[in-house]
């Protein structure tokens, strides 16, 4: 199968996510902000709806035999609990300082925010340093030492000895019930649009990598492969390591072993989709830094997201939607840690406001 189908499919799905994310103001950091600062849960419900749709859709694909979620990085036996907690928490701090998570950074870039372009660069460098550089030594030598091996895997069906349909239906159903209990949420079309499209994009992302990109026996290695991926595993949407690999691809352009991957194409797709929506609705506007403190916050925020996103194996989409769609225990922990890190940072920012 041609790698172009994989990268093209990833770009197309990401384009839709970028356009809809811009229109609906889908923002995981905004979800925490609305909840913590105003007591409004609608954007949190949008995020939870995305999780529910991704979980139910991905589980259906798994049960129908279309994809094997066990071939992704999330439900593996190495349960690095400290990495999920520390990485998730620092990612939450970073996304609050940096005007949004990885996907929101891409959406903001598409809409003309130059601050988010700087966040992208610092996030990509921080992520690369955590993958292969200075921070990587700390990640592997310290944080990942705190790990438990779960031989059957860390996904809830394996841990609880249940058929996948049971936890998927219970958790997905509970989330849907919570989300749609709100009359205001039911009345707001954009809320449902943002949540459902994000969830469907993640479920569709598994099909792109797990079906279009699946090679049962690669002719060069004679082993199973998921082509055009950076992890070598089945992928769906995640935005931190792809930013590192995008910078690497641009810097090592003449190295012919470097190719456009699923992750690189998905990041570009979100920017393009958001830009298309912003231009079509005449909402595109250039934004720049306010002052030195604002600049420093975004640089630090980007670095923290880069470090946290790699350490925790994903971001507010990569772990909290894509990871949870596999029912991996670490994904639920990361989600909680991100929300905690973000909420506490907002408390600090409120205390500092006007100081």
């Amino acid at each position, binding site marked *: 199968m041609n790698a172009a189908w994989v990268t093209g499919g990833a770009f197309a799905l990401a384009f839709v996510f970028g356009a809809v994310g811009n229109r609906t*103001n889908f*923002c995981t*950091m*905004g979800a925490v*902000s*609305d909840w913590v*600062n*105003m*007591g*409004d849960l*609608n954007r949190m419900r949008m995020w939870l709806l995305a999780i529910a749709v991704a979980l139910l859709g991905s589980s259906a694909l798994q049960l129908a035999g279309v994809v094997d979620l066990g071939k992704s990085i999330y439900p593996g036996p190495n349960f690095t609990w400290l990495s999920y907690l520390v990485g998730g928490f620092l990612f939450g701090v970073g996304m*609050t300082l940096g*005007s*949004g998570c990885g996907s929101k950074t891409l959406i*903001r870039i598409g*809409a003309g*925010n130059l*601050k988010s372009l700087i966040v992208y660069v610092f996030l990509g460098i921080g992520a690369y340093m955590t993958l292969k550089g200075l921070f990587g030594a700390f990640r592997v030598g310290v944080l990942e030492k705190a790990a438990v091996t779960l031989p059957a895997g860390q996904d809830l069906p394996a841990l609880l000895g249940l058929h996948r349909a049971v936890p998927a239906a219970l958790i997905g159903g509970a989330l849907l019930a919570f989300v749609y209990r709100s009359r205001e949420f039911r009345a707001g079309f954009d809320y449902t649009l943002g949540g459902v499209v994000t969830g469907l994009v993640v479920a569709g992302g598994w099909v792109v990598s797990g079906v279009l990109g699946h090679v049962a026996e690669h002719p060069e290695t004679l082993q199973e492969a998921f082509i055009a991926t950076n992890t070598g595993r089945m992928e769906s949407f995640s935005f931190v390591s792809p930013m590192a690999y995008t910078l690497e691809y641009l810097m090592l352009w003449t190295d012919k072993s470097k190719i456009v991957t699923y992750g690189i194409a998905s990041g570009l797709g979100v920017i393009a989709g958001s830009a298309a929506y912003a231009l079509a609705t005449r*909402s595109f*506007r250039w*934004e*720049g*830094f*306010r*002052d030195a403190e*604002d600049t420093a916050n975004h640089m630090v925020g980007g670095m923290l997201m880069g470090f946290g996103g790699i350490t925790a194996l994903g971001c507010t989409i990569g772990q909290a939607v894509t990871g949870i769609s596999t029912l991996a225990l670490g994904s639920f922990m990361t989600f909680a840690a991100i929300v905690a890190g973000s909420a506490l940072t*907002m408390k600090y*920012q*409120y205390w500092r*406001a*006007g100081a």
Partner: protein
Amino acid sequence: MHHDVELDARGLNCPLPILRAKKALNGMQSGQVLKVVATDPGAVKDFQTFAKQTGNELLQHAEADREFTLYMKRK
């Protein structure tokens, strides 16, 4: 429009305009008006939600020269 306190939130993105407005309103008397100038594209939506949730009234909002000007009355 008359205002008692002004908050310059230009160049700031979510959540800072809301946080600073919240803190400013906390230091004001009931009935006083806060003027906010912001550039975040999501500012109007954010302040509409803030008004609905907190009971502080969003009296008026307008856009000119890529800036949003909002007036909010302390409840």
